[in-house]
């Protein structure tokens, strides 16, 4: 696998989109980690004398609130920084969980087949035929608000996407004659999964994970936009956008700034995903023999 990782590294560097995506997300993580030191105010501190202040560069902006304040006089910069923490946590954990469950079920169903496969496939069908947003929202109503529940909801909704793609891939790999060759070479089911199937699955898995970054971020923002994400005292970008809609006519900044952050993050995650997809293109790998 070293050949794969080395060439992956080399191809990663050759892609500006991928570099931008990875770089931005790294920066975001650092900002989120340093939020308590960087934020000029407590994110929930309300300054009712200074509501809807414009940011620094607009007329009437003040150094005290570099990005202005919202309708409740809360510091937009501080809220954005703290909101980034939620984004980063979700992005770090939710794809991992969804990948783990999806991959496990895909291997069980795809490799062993039979009624298990039938069941897995039916569940995936079911999950994908129901609007994901809706399922997550209903789940959030049942669970109480909180970041860990948001992660749970995203994993609960998105495992099916992983499972569908990976299962198809497992079915394809299982029929390869090199798997039959391993079988008559005396390898057991676990050996084949570990040595033949999983390495073959890896490129797809990486791509799916990378795509799930942006999907998870969007899902969280939708939930918080609908007011059903983290606990009310935790600032989230989606919540800020929803609040900003209310004061749109008086001042667009509390709306536009989180929208801008959101779009940048989603784009970065998407670039990362697309870049990785091209970098680990399965067909390219096959042709180059992982060289």
């Amino acid at each position, binding site marked *: 696998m070293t050949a794969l990782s080395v060439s992956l590294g080399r191809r990663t560097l050759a892609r500006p989109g991928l570099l931008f995506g990875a770089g931005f997300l790294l920066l975001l993580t650092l900002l989120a980690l340093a939020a308590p030191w960087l934020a000029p105010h407590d994110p929930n501190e309300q300054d009712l004398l200074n509501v809807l202040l414009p940011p620094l560069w607009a007329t009437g902006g003040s150094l005290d609130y570099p990005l202005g304040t919202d309708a409740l006089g809360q510091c937009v910069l501080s809220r954005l920084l703290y909101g980034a923490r939620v984004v980063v946590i979700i992005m770090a954990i939710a794809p991992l969980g969804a990948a783990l469950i999806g991959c496990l079920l895909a291997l069980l169903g795809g490799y062993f087949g039979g009624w298990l496969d039938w069941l897995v496939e039916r569940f995936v*069908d*079911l999950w*994908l*035929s*129901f*609007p*994901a*947003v*809706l399922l997550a*929202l*209903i*789940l959030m*109503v*049942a*669970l*109480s608000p909180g970041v860990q529940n948001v992660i749970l909801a995203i994993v609960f909704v998105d495992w099916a996407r992983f499972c569908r793609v990976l299962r198809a891939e497992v079915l394809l790999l299982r029929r390869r004659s090199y798997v039959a060759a391993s079988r008559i070479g005396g390898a057991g089911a676990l050996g084949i999964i570990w040595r033949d199937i999983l390495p073959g699955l890896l490129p797809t898995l990486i791509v799916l994970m990378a795509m799930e970054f*942006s999907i998870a971020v*969007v899902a969280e*923002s*939708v939930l918080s*936009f*609908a*007011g*059903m994400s983290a606990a009310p005292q935790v600032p989230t970008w989606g919540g800020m*956008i929803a609040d900003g*809609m209310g004061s*749109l*006519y008086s001042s*667009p900044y509390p*709306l*536009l700034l989180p*929208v801008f952050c*959101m*779009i940048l993050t*989603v*784009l970065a*995650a*998407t670039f990362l995903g*697309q870049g990785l997809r091209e970098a680990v293109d399965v067909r390219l790998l096959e042709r180059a023999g992982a060289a």
Partner: protein
Amino acid sequence: MSATVQPLAIASGALIRAASLSWLALRQALWRIPMLLVITLVTFLILRGVPIDPVNMLMPPNASAQEIAELSHQLGLDRPVLVQYLMWLRGALSGDFGISIQTGQPVLPMVLQALPMTLQILFFGLLSGLAMGLGSGMLAFRARGSVLEPAIMSINGVMMAIPDYLWAIALIVTLGVGLQWLPFIGPIDPGLQVPNITGFLLLDCLLQGDLVAFGSALAHLFLPSLTLGLCIATPIARVLHSSLIEVYQEDYLQAARLRGLDENTLLVRHALRNAALPTISLIGVQASVVIGGTLLIETIFGLPGIGALMIRALGSFDLQTIQLLALTYAITVQLVNMLSDFTLRTLNPRLRIAP
């Protein structure tokens, strides 16, 4: 197989094909019913986890413990969950979906009243999405080799990344608030009155012969439909573009070109139909995403569809409404899926043979 086609099959091929086609369609339609049932069951089970006791919300705050127990019994809430589900199902089959705790009214008429608005958005969204997606996908393909192709496809890639509700906000901020070209709150200008005949606002305006109201309703529908359309168009453009490229590498296209067909005939008669197959199955796959998109779009644009209803119901733990709306969404997705399956079968003869 050195496979020879059976003489019998050749003779009665058409007949068998027609029969197997309708049997297949029927079987696939029937298969959707248990799926819907399982969806309602899953929703039901999830909603049992709601941390709020529905009985408490129905009763006045000063109700006695006995009264609460009586109502619980009456609603069947003291029975096992599965029995409760079966009770709900029995009611549902006779058209009784329970009572909304927000309004105290039966849920079904409420949902039926809101549904046309959502269907209107969905219809225009799909229409505009298809038009924009097919248009830009074809444009990018026809421009292959020039700088236009990568330009269109990268812009498309960026646009695809942006989630639907951000599109809604972006359109409101630019076209609505900024340029003030289009209205963006509510289904129609506040001053106008249109009687409810079919429930479909646009249709009602026309039936009344009220062109001013029709124009206003159409204008109000423009931004929501455009939002939804943009979310549909981007993946369509991408898939159409890449499947056109793939189809152009197929042997049959090469063979047709070697028969001297000109490029336009190749594209229209040989390539498009084959390239349409993955595009249409994409619409089927994306149906749930698209329909989920109406949820926030309705809320943001203040349209009284089932999405707005759902968000309200979720906020106030209106379980019966949530349950019925979940079923409604599931049915809508299945309908769109059936439509795309039907189109696929019409276009692809291979699918007409039983799988």
